[in-house]
Structure formats: C-alpha cells, structure tokens
C-alpha cells in the first residue's frame, strides 16, 4: 500500500498528459490572440473610423496634396540652423552631466546591496526613478519653464531630471550584480563606506555605467531638439517658428538638421565608447 502511494504521488507523464497540456496551451494562446484581435478591431473602430473627420480629409488626392507641401528643403535656412544646433548639443551635454550628478544618490539608494536604510531609502529611490521616467520631457520642460523661466536652463533641468530614471535604474542593477569580494576586502582592512564605494564598487560598475551614460546622451540630443517647442531654445524653437509661419520646406530643413546632429552624435558616441570602454 505504502509503495503504491509513493508511486502515484508524482503524476505519471504519459503521452495523453503531454497531448492534453499541449491542447490547453494552444487553447490559452488562441484566447489571447482572440482578445488581442478584438482589441484591435475595437481600437480601429473608435480611433480611425469614428474619430477621423473623413469629409474634411477629402480623399487620397487631398491628403497627398497636403503631404506634398512638406517635400522639399529650404536651403537658405541652413546657415541659420548652425547656432541652434550647437545650442541643442550643449543643452544635451549639460543636461546629461547634471543628470549623472542627480542619479548618484538615486543609484546609491536604489541598489539593494548598498542602500543605507532599506525600508525607507529603497522605495524612495525606486519612486524617484519611476517618477522621472513616466513623465515626458515636454511636461518636465513645461514645469521647469514655469519654475525658472524661459531659456536653456529649463531645458537642461528637464533633460537632467528625465534621464535620471534610466541611468539610475541601470546603474543600480549594475551595482546589485557586483562581485562582493572586493567590498568585503576593503571592509576587512578598515575602509569606511565612502572608501568602499570608491575602491570596490566604482571600478566594477564604471564600464557599464559609462556605456549607459553615453547611450542616454545620444537620446538626450534627440530630446533637446524638441524642447524648444515649449520655450527652452535650440532647434525646437526654429521648428516651431517655421511651422507657425507655414514655411513647410523650412520645417523639413530643420528635420534634416536634427538628423545630421544625431548622426554626428552617434559617430561621437561610437568613438567615445571605443576609447573609454
């Protein structure tokens, strides 16, 4: 009797069981796909069919006409774009730098293994990261424009605060993955917390963190190019002006300038990555 009980306790895997499992998995997948499909149909119905004013659009020809206005470049604008482009690049650089400084406490508090007082500081840091990532840079810029006034400073603050979340999250994850050996060694020879961070943690995470910072800097160029839309200077301001004066070829020129700036940024970041890491 006893023997039989031990035999039956793990369910015997027969071909029937495997087939049953496969069928259940297939059923679940079918239900998931059906739900997703129903959502698509519903969303298309609400957003594309009901919400669009098809009479105003007036057929493909009219849409093509409207789109056609944008094709072409305003060559005369390019000399005027150099200065805003430099401004955009500077805002991105300073914003990233400030963001790196701001993310030091966030990464320190947000890494489980070195956070000073877990029940308070860890959730605090996690909340900071979510807050920073969930609010769009445009909204941050609006807030900082209302707090510090129009100008590049608002843009720098917006970019800094927006990039804290990503850099701090990645750095905190890197810190959580370190080898604890060096930390214990520094502690054993009597190093204080500060020395542990400088000599045991920083050397281990520096390559990863630098990679993340360079990646974020690249994204920040793209972000700072639109902050001018809400009053923070740079290429976005020119874009806004060209759009409001209906100079559609000028708008395209600004976009080409943004593309060029981002290409330069990508080349630079590739080079820096190879030189540093």
């Amino acid at each position, binding site marked *: 009797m006893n023997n039989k009980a031990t035999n039956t306790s793990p369910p015997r895997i027969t071909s029937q069981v495997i087939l049953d499992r496969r069928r259940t998995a297939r059923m679940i997948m079918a239900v998931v796909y059906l739900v997703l499909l129903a959502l698509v149909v519903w*969303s298309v119905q609400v*957003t594309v069919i009901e*919400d*669009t004013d098809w009479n105003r659009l007036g057929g493909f020809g009219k849409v093509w006409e409207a789109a056609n206005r944008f094709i072409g470049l305003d060559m005369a604008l390019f000399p005027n774009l150099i200065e805003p482009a430099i401004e955009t690049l500077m805002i991105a650089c300073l914003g990233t730098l400030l963001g790196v400084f701001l993310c030091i406490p966030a990464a320190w508090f947000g890494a489980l293994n070195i956070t000073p007082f877990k029940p308070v500081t860890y959730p605090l840091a996690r909340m900071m990261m979510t807050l920073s990532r969930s609010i769009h840079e445009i909204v941050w810029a*609006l807030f900082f424009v209302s707090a510090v006034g129009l100008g590049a*400073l608002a843009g*720098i603050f917006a970019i800094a605060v927006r990039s804290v979340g990503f850099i701090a999250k990645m750095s905190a994850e890197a810190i959580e993955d370190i080898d604890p050996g060096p930390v214990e060694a520094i502690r054993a020879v009597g190093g204080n917390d500060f020395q542990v961070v400088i000599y045991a943690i920083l050397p281990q995470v520096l390559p990863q963190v630098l990679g993340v910072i360079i990646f974020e800097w690249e994204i920040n160029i793209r972000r700072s*190019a639109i902050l001018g839309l809400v009053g923070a200077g740079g290429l976005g301001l020119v874009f806004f002006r060209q759009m409001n004066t209906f100079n559609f070829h000028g708008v395209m020129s600004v976009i080409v300038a943004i593309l060029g700036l981002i290409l330069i940024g990508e080349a630079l970041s590739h080079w820096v990555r190879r030189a540093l890491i």
Partner: protein
Amino acid sequence: MSTPTMSPQDSRHIAKDAQSTLQWRRFKFPGSLIRYAVWLSVFVFLAYSVEYLEIPLERLLGIFGRMGATLANRYYPPDMEYIMDADYMRYVVETIQMAYLGALFGLVATVPLGWFASYNMTPSRCFVYPVARLVTMSCRAVHEMIFAIIFVAILGYGMLPGVLALTFFCTGFAGKLFAEEIEAIDIGPVEAMRATGANLFQIMVFGVFPQVRVAFTGIAIYTWDVAFRAATVVGFFGAGGMGWYLKRNVLQIESERVAAILVSIIILVFISEMLSAWARNTVMKMK
C-alpha cells in the same frame, strides 16, 4: 635579527631604480598627453556652453527653494475630482487605444524592416541593408512630437495622426532591437535550410523567425509600454488622447488640474510598467 632589515636584493633594486629615471606609469607619454588634452577640451567645452547658453549661475543657488515654492503654492493640492470625470476617463481609454494601435502597426512594419536591416540575413548588403538602416535610424532620430506635429498638419486634429506618429516612433524603437536580435541568431539552421535549397523567404519563416519568436514578443511588450508613455503627450499638439487635456489646462494655467493629470499619468505608467514586466516574465517562462 627581529627588526626587519633590507636584504641585499632589495637594496639592489632600489639602486637600480634610482639610476634609471624610468618610472612605471599607467599611461605612456603620448597617450597621456592626448588623454589630458581630451579631458581639458571636454571641460572647456562644458564651461563654454554654460557661458554660451547664458545660464544665470548666480540664480542657481536659490533655485531649489523656488522650485519647491512653485510646487507647493501652485501645484500642490491636485484637483482629483477633475480627473475622476467620465469624459476624462474616455480620453484615457483613447490614449491606451492609440498606444496599442501605434505599437501594433509599428511592430508589423518592424518585421520586414528588421529582416532587411540585419546584416547577416538581409537580401542585399549593398542596397537593401543601408536603406533599411537609414529608415530605422530616421524613425528613431526624429522625436515622436515632430511626427505628431507633421501628421496633424497633414491630416488635421484627431487620433489618426497620433496613431501614425506612434507607428513611426515604434518602428524606429523596435526595428533596431529586432534587427540586433536577428543578428544574434544561431546560423546553423539557416545554413541547413540553405543547403536544402530553400529560398530567402522560406529561410526567414522556418529558420529565423522560430529563433527570435520569444525575443520578439518581449520586444513587442516593451514597445507597447514605451508607446503608452509617448501617447500620453502626443495629444499635446492636437493628436488625440489625454495630451490635449494637459495642453488645455497648461494654457489656462490651471496648475492644480495639471498636477492631477500628471498624477494620473504617473499611476497609469506605473500600472502599465507592472503589467508589461509581468507579461514579459510570463512569455520568458513559456520559452
């Protein structure tokens, strides 16, 4: 001999060091100079940009106090009743739908684009590959706000331009990730299929897609998450969703309502982040 004394060997080493002025250095001469020059130029550039952008450094000291005061005076009690409104809830649902459709269309576009933009699988390395790379890069480089503004200018206000803007944004975002995923596949099955005489399309469907299926699902969920974050503000320039609410209240300087909308955005993003993390974990486990 309890006190440590210098052994003859040690003294010889020291004498040798004193004779030769060579010292160990981490960076050798020309490299070290270049290093210092690069760091110096970076600092000069940063200092110059502070000067060039006319940042009022003397005002920076009191800035945090002023920000705190702004938050406390203008934004503090968020007008929660305002966001409990049924009309606002409808806009929230619209935002979610926009993000869903944008992510879906973007992902559909990503499948061929990721194929063409992966260096190992692309049909032609000298023509299709650079074109696909360029398309992906431009979609990624141009901010979703710019797409939104241009589509609003072409198609008028509404949710369609928002969906299109998010489509382009998601194409750029997911295209690069997907191409990288294809570049990292195991080439064995592909070579086996090629040896049996399969054409490009068959290789893709039976050799490559089964390998990247799980990764693609993960990318898709992540894309939806990012698209939702972008969708909350795409309406800022008239492309539908809750961004329009935000813009209206910003322009009317209804700061307490703006604060309430921001709170709702934070909560929604938090929920979507949790959902996407859960969905990604589930998919990874099914692997």
